[in-house]
């Protein structure tokens, strides 16, 4: 248990007459959606931050009780709209676990391919927006942002060729995937990831030799190993704080044990460490996609008949928790089935929600400019925080 007094406020030996309370958000250029941080300032230094969420609440858990197992995967993608594939993945895994459905090997590999492509797309957006937080929409940050968006576009094109949609897919289906890859898609995918591989090199050269970038990222927003475990953050944040934990390796699902990849870990715990982890994850995701494309078995893409009606999928009574390693960390669903075509109750475990809880612990003591840098490095998606 953390000492709450140290969390909420740091004493800066302030001799000024009064503190300034300032709202950052919910309408703010760097709010990454709709997030409100009520910061207390002593001059330029933040002494306390109160994170207010809930502006994007859309009753996702209640909604899941009203939609069938065939319908909801397309809606699940709207929880974390930056990594839509991941949320669908968690939903269908839970349903499959209760129903004990087999998933054909080909479908498992296809799921891995889209999940890793989604990770690349999501990290690209993170890199762009984070740099824009630090560098401004009217400065160098915007340059990186536009480069990243250019590459993300390539992946969205791949998804469009696969599913027909560019942002919210509905690719997953209980028992397998809804679509198979079209002709020539595998070749296009290889070319795209080769391009992205070389572009990631370019970004690293551009950023890691940039003194101003290093000055802003290094030593800022340090999350210690203990704090990371106490607060329960996940994903790149956790690995940036020196904890070697990745569900793809520690609790493999969907044939992740077939692939050879490394889990990057950094021990510094600052924004730069999180940046390093994510940059390494780009590479790992690219190698996983390559391996999956090489080994892609032939066969059916679903163990269940093609969808003809919305209430077609029925799952026996039971409950299960399924989790996947999303771009932002552990995304999980806890599902209770009463034997009908809809879940009786479902709970989302959003990675952004848990990661956001770290902010009040690490922001106090930093300057105003660091607030946005730290928030960007946490990479919250407010669709997933509020659900």
């Amino acid at each position, binding site marked *: 248990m953390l000492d709450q007094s140290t969390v909420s406020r740091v004493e800066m030996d302030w001799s000024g007459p009064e503190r*300034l309370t*300032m709202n*950052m958000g919910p309408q*703010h*250029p*760097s709010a990454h959606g709709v997030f409100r941080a009520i910061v207390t*300032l002593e*001059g*330029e230094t933040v002494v306390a931050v109160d994170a207010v969420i809930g502006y994007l609440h859309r009753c996702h858990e209640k909604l899941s009780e009203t939609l069938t197992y065939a319908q909801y995967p397309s809606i699940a993608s709207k929880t974390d709209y930056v990594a839509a594939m991941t949320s669908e993945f968690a939903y269908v895994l839970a349903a499959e676990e209760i129903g004990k459905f087999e998933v054909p090997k080909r479908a498992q590999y296809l799921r891995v391919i889209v999940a890793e492509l989604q990770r690349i797309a999501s990290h690209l957006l993170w890199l762009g927006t984070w*740099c*824009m*937080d*630090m*560098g*401004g*929409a*009217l*400065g*160098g*940050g*915007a*340059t990186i942002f*536009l*480069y990243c968006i*250019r590459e993300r576009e390539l992946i969205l094109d791949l998804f469009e060729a696969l599913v027909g949609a560019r942002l919210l897919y509905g690719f997953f289906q209980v028992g397998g995937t809804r679509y198979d890859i079209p002709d020539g898609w595998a070749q296009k995918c290889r070319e795209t990831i080769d391009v992205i591989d070389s572009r990631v090199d370019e970004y690293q050269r551009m950023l890691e030799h*940039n003194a*101003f*970038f290093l*000055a*802003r990222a290094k030593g800022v927003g340090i999350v210690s190993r203990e704090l990371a475990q106490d607060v329960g953050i996940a994903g790149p944040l956790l690995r940036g704080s020196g904890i070697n934990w990745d569900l793809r390796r520690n609790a493999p699902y969907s044939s992740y044990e077939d692939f050879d990849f490394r889990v990057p870990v950094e021990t510094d715990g600052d924004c730069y460490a999180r940046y390093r982890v994510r940059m390494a994850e780009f590479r790992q995701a690219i190698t996983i996609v390559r391996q999956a494309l090489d080994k892609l078995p032939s066969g059916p893409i679903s163990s269940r008949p093609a969808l003809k009606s919305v209430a077609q999928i029925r799952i026996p009574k039971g409950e299960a928790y399924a989790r996947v390693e999303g771009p932002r960390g552990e995304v999980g669903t806890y599902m209770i089935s009463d034997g009908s075509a809809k879940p009786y109750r479902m709970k989302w475990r959003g990675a952004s929600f848990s990661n956001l809880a770290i902010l009040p612990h690490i922001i106090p003591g930093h*300057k*105003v*400019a*660091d*607030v*946005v840098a730290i928030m960007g490095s946490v990479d919250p998606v407010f669709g997933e925080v509020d659900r």
Partner: protein
Amino acid sequence: MMAALPPWLTLLIAPFVVLNVVIGLVTYVTLLERKFAARMQSRIGPYRVGPHGLLQPIADALKLMMKEDVVPTAADRRIYNLAPIVFLIPCMLIFATIPFAPGLGVADVNIGILFFLAVSAMEIVGLFMAGWGSNNKYALLSAMRAVNQIISYDLPFIFSALVPVLLAGSLKMSDIAAAQQGSLLKWFIFYPVIGQLAFIMFVVATLAAENRVPFDILEAESELVAGFRVEYSGMKFALIQLGEYAHMIGSSFLGALLFLGAWSGPGPEYLGPIWFLLKAMFMFLVVTWIRWSFVRIRVDQILALSWKALLPATLGLLISTAIVVVWRTSAGF
């Protein structure tokens, strides 16, 4: 042409001409910057209004004129309304002492460069008024940062601008320019070691004085939304924008005059102003290039950079320049 007119008439016409040229330049320099930034970011940039977006600045200006002028209820109305003008005047006044060609300028006073430096530092008053009068917390923080930053960077700015003054032996702008005529190697940027160092320091100090990335903590739209001008709209916003760009162009002209030989260049003498303009635009593009490739640094880092690195460095350079100049005159070459 100027010489044929009676002097009192020249005094009235010249500022009018310069002011209008500057305003025209400002509108088109924004287009230049946007096109340049677009190239850097693999975009096209403004393209729809007129051929290659050439009418875009005019459309922007018209749009700003037609926007509703919003005054926040909580604002200190007098200060709020006065601030854009107080900000604009020094930004325009800096053009007064710049000679655009031999004898072609508003006032070529014998302390021209001091006038420039003094007046350009005055813009902080307008900035602070805007930040204070808006009665907005973002604007207030921005105004606070403005005072911090401008005070910290004025000294390095002045010291680095004084190096060419020492080399030319005069505070008069036209004398500094005249000292660099003749050959390319006479430009002060090619003065061995001192010239290049002074130029780099001058560019850094200008960036800070102009509040450009990586020193644009006043505007800092990811933290402070738009800083001191967050509450401004319509023509008042346009005036602030105009002032900012005028200041930037003025500094570019100053840099071109101090280091790049002002109007010296090949071809007949009447091409002088063109060369000067091209060099100033080069200075502007250097600043733009830096702007679109770096991230912003934090307020404490900016102050540390000024007081711990730039100020001692420029001061040291100024002293060593003085020693070199004295040694050269005494040695007779």
